[in-house]
């Protein structure tokens, strides 16, 4: 075991592991490919046969360029400081891998690698990254141990060189460890790792959490995966859309009255954003400024209190726990039932609880929840909503959620300035700035349609007319509004085809018009927009809702797995007083189900198992919050108390048994204590004897005496101990005899290397053969000779260059 060489290899491995883990955390395969290849090549270039390094000035120049790149990324591309620092450290490490390295450079590499893992740990919640982190920690532990030993030897060598003055340079301290040293080092590493891991677990559990992060990772290039399905705006007519990856977005656990709710055949809609404004210029649905102005920032505690215990008492509550897998955005998803033919009731928030969020913005107008701060990956929150629709308020003739009273008492937020806006309209596609939107009031909210209005209205009227329905275009609400919406949704489901091709609209034509009258096929957003357009053309308030369709139920964990490919859009229609906003899904159900169907087979089962483990990792480790902490500590305290009680009871029983035994055997307490001590001593002696026996067996095995008769074996084992001592000395100094090599061959090999230095080995080997096979008895003179040879061997082994 050459610690210096091993240390260099381990540092190289650790740096590469850090780079790979960082690229994984950023989900950047391109960076992984480039940085990994450059880093891996560095070993061949610097440590290979030619061993070339780049000069220091070029490394310094590269570091300056990397700093410029860092500044450019942070200021130009507005990349988060964490991601930018990750890139910066990767570049620095790659540069340093190619330069000539002393202990100082190796120390810098280790610190840089550690910094990189810190930044990567902020970015990633993946269990694969967690596994990488674990491997990294193990490698880092061994590396630091060996690096410390190597640097200590180097420091000693440097001091000796300095002290030597003129003359030949002193011999470098020997970093070649023996087999025993390796064993002891491995044992120490295991013990240190176990202790460190245990203490780390304890610190992890008891460290207080505030739950409030100071980082904003919502930028466009901050390592979060691009989302093919869900977004805060919907832009139509942009050509084909992908199905999105099958990467899990979130896990949804549903329960009602404390019982789990969920089934592989039952789907739910995970509602993200309600979009009430359509811009015909860029064909984009977005949230109107009027809706944004209704947002109120509410403390999570207030929402929780207002969650409505009263509603729960009256109607019962659905509860959902949403565990986000990764940092995405500030949207908070709610849950609604999948609508059937007549639609399903819209979402009405009754309670909200989270350990990761202090406050959220909530709009009773569109039941829109949104985080006011970035939530670091792996956050979770819990929602509650009534099972049955809320009561009807006859005074206001509006459906009232339990939070509405709270909202009325809450100060309305002023319209947000552009710079600080965190509204959903802040995407680069649609900006509220400078956009001329019609003035919206509560009466005109989600009403009106100005794109091919007459044509769409005629289509809608013809459809409802066939169903025997009519609608007054001027009426705000009519009792048939929901029936009309239902007919129109049914019409789209039956006469239009679901397709992900998303054809580009005809030149100068609106995509919705192209969908309704020309192509008659499209994806879910076109279906939802078409239904909203037809409803609005008839005077019925309608809006788009985007989110996910949760249909993949993980039976192992009892929760729904929502993936990016499950992104979906649907329509919400206002049914008027007494009904409220009702959810309609005009997309052909069978097509959507086929599209979202989870693959079957053992691979999918395996994947489900992996995702369950990863979910547990996220919930127990990544999303470990103060609530979980309290629960864990409470459970731990109770467990310890229970163990204490059990131990007390057990000792009491043992004491009683001992006293009973004393009564039965007429022993006094003193005798019993003496007996116990005697038994303990016997046990200890047995352990020591066993250890001694095992040691003796090992020595006999090394001397290959195990097949001899017992007395001969013991006798030779004692007399040949000097040979094992000699082997130990040689082993300490890097000369280990392989098992296949005979003692004579070993001695010959050593003397060929250095005839004078290993003279004692030859003498001791000859004595070994004499004793082992020549029946030679050793006397006091032999013992003195053996001691002299061993001392000389130790001396020559230490002063190996003399």
């Amino acid at each position: 075991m050459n610690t210096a060489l091993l240390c260099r290899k381990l540092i190289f491995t650790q740096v590469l592991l850090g780079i790979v883990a960082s690229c994984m955390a950023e989900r950047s395969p391109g960076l992984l490919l480039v940085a990994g290849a450059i880093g891996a090549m560095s070993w061949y270039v610097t440590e290979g046969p030619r061993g070339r390094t780049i000069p220091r000035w070029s490394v310094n120049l590269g570091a300056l360029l990397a700093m410029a790149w860092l500044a450019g990324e942070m200021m130009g591309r507005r990349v988060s400081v964490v991601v930018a620092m990750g890139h910066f450290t990767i570049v620095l490490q790659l540069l340093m891998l190619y330069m000539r390295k002393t202990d100082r450079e190796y120390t810098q590499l280790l610190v840089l690698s550690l910094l990189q893992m810190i930044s990567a740990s902020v970015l990633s919640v993946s269990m694969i990254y967690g596994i990488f982190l674990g491997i990294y920690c193990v490698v880092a532990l061994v590396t630091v141990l060996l690096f410390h030993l190597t640097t200590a030897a180097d420091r000693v060598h440097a001091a000796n060189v300095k002290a030597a003055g003129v003359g030949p340079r002193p011999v470098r301290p020997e970093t070649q460890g023996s087999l025993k040293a390796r064993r002891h080092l491995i044992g120490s590493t295991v013990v240190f790792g176990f202790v460190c891991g245990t203490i780390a677990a304890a610190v992890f559990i008891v460290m207080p959490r505030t739950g409030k992060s100071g980082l904003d990772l919502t930028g466009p290039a901050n390592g979060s995966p691009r989302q093919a399905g869900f977004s805060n705006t919907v832009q139509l007519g942009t050509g084909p859309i992908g199905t999105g990856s099958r990467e899990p977005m979130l896990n949804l656990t549903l329960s009602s009255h404390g019982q789990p709710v969920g089934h592989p055949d039952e789907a739910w809609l995970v509602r993200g954003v309600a979009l009430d404004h359509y811009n015909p210029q860029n064909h984009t649905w977005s949230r109107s400024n009027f809706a944004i102005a209704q947002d109120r920032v509410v403390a999570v505690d207030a929402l929780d209190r207002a969650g409505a215990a009263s509603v729960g008492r009256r109607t019962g509550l659905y509860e959902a726990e949403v565990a986000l897998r990764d940092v995405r955005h500030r949207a908070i998803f709610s849950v609604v039932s999948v609508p059937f033919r007549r639609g399903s009731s819209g979402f009405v928030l009754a309670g909200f609880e989270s350990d990761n969020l202090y406050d959220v913005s909530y709009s009773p107008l569109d039941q829109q929840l949104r985080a006011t701060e970035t939530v670091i990956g792996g956050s979770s929150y819990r929602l509650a909503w009534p099972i049955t629709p809320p009561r009807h308020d006859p005074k206001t003739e509006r459906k009232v959620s339990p939070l509405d009273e709270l909202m009325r008492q809450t100060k309305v937020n002023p319209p947000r300035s552009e710079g600080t806006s965190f509204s959903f309209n802040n995407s680069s596609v649609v900006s509220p700035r400078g956009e001329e939107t019609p003035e919206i009031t509560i009466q005109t909210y989600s009403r009106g349609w100005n794109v091919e209005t007459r044509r769409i209205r005629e289509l809608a009227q013809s459809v409802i007319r066939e169903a025997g329905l009519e609608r007054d275009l001027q009426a705000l609400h009519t009792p048939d509004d929901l029936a009309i919406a239902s007919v129109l949704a049914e019409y789209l489901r039956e006469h239009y085809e679901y397709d992900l091709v998303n054809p580009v609209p005809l030149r100068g034509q609106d995509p919705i018009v192209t969908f309704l009258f020309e192509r008659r096929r499209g994806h879910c957003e076109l279906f939802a927009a078409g239904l909203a357009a037809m409803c609005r053309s008839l005077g019925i308030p309608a809006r788009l809702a985007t989110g996910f369709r949760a249909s993949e139920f993980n039976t192992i964990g009892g929760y729904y797995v929502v993936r990016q490919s499950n992104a979906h859009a649907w329509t919400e229609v206002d049914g008027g007083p007494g009904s409220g906003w009702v959810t309609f899904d005009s997309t052909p159900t069978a097509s959507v189900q086929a599209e979202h169907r989870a693959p079957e087979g053992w691979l999918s089962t395996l994947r489900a198992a992996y995702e369950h483990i990863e979910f547990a990792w996220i919930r127990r480790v990544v999303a470990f919050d103060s609530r979980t902490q309290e629960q864990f500590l409470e459970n731990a305290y109770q467990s310890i108390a229970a163990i204490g009680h059990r131990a007390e009871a057990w000792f009491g029983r043992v004491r009683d048994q001992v006293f009973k035994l004393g009564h039965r055997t007429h022993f006094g307490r003193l005798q019993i204590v003496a007996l116990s001590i005697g038994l303990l001593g016997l046990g200890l002696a047995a352990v020591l004897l066993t250890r001694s026996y095992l040691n003796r067996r090992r020595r006999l095995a090394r001397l290959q005496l195990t097949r001899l008769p017992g007395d001969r074996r013991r006798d030779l084992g004692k007399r040949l101990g000097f040979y094992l001592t000699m082997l130990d000395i040689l082993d300490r100094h890097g000369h280990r005899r392989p098992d296949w090599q005979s003692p004579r061959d070993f001695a010959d090999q050593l003397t060929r290397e250095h005839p004078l230095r290993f003279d004692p080995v030859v003498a001791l080997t000859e004595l070994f053969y004499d004793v082992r096979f020549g029946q030679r008895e050793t006397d006091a003179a032999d013992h003195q000779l053996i001691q002299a040879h061993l001392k000389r061997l130790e001396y020559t082994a230490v002063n190996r260059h003399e």
Partner: protein
Amino acid sequence: MAAARESHGKTFRSTPIRQIIIDMKPVRTRVRIGSGGVLYLIVSLMILASAFYTQANLLFWGFGLTVGGLVVSLGAAAVALRGLGVSRIVPRHGAAGEALALRYHVHNRGWLPVFGVVIREDQGRRRGQHKKAGSVGTWGGMLAGAPQAWLLHLGPGQTAQTAAPCRPQRRGKLRFEQIEVSTSFPFGVIHKTVMFVQENDVQVFPHLYRARRQLLGSLTAGGVDSAQTLDRGGGGGDFFGVRPYRPGDSPRNIDWKRTARTGELVARELTMPSPPLLNLVLDLRETPPMAVSGKSSGGLSGVQSAASGRQLEERAISLAASLICDAYLRGFKVGLKVLGLPDVSFRAQHSLSHRTQLLESLADLDLNQPRDESASPDLRQAADVVVWAGRGSSLPLRLDGTGRTASVVGAADFDRYVSMPTALDKLESSDAKWRHSTRRPPRSAFSGGVQQMMEATA
């Protein structure tokens, strides 16, 4: 090893080395933040700050690992070096500029292995003085730094030997007082040091150089082959005379013919061989001026112009020591007299112990002592070779009042007498260019022999 060792003023004779080590008790134990400790703490605090700022749970885990590392370091420091015994083994003599075999026997009687053990010589830190600033000794300028040895691993119950490279730079008495054993395993965070007291003195001879091959022959009147026979009986091979037999005479020496003729036992007496003689006088009565002027030869001109009087005197002592060693190897009986300094006068003899005595006396010369310039004439008249700090003479010096001549060897013409010219001021300078040079500096012909000699005379 049954050699006599001194420790705590106690002399161990015929004591096994392991017993000596076991008897060694550390006098002081010290625990402090190690060299990597500050960096470790900074990184730990950085992880903690990042964890609180980002609330990323993995960073809390990482901080826990660093806390674990700190606890492990404290625990390791608590148990490390317990039961460790160290014994220094040094020869009695060394030579300036030569490697000194400084070895340590280390025994671990604890039940845990120790790793990364640094053994360092420490001087000037006696008990209660370790807090004094700048108390690190410099061994009187004889060493450029503290010799250090290193052990990668020492298992429980194991004894190992390690060596510290040590190269004295000047002649004199080198005193080793304390052994500092330290480790900062596992992470370099905590540095634990234990101190052992073991005092050893090493007599460091002057620099020994290879004298030119013909030098000794040219300096002495008879040359190196000038072995003579004395006019008296001895153990030689030539016939000297006969005398009556004395009890104790070898029967082989009986002259049987003469015995038969005279009727009394008569023994033959053989001549006594006499080895060549070298009476060396080291004249240190006056110190030459700071710079030596005059002719210079070759590459030593720069050195000569820079050589101070003290350096020339040191050269003269080195020249004398080199001549003594050369003469001893060639079978000369060597006598030594030092003029200017008191009590240094040895009759000519030829033995290893005599040579060692001469070198010891040269090593002990204190040039700071007041000089006695009134040397008696007979001292000068008994000289075959006079070594002094000035210029040498190519012609023999005729001594006053007698017909004898003496050769004068001058330290200023150093390169005339040694086969490899050496810049002594560079040797004495702590900032020598040789240190990082790939050129090997000149070594004396006794480089190997000095080690053996030191072992033999220990």
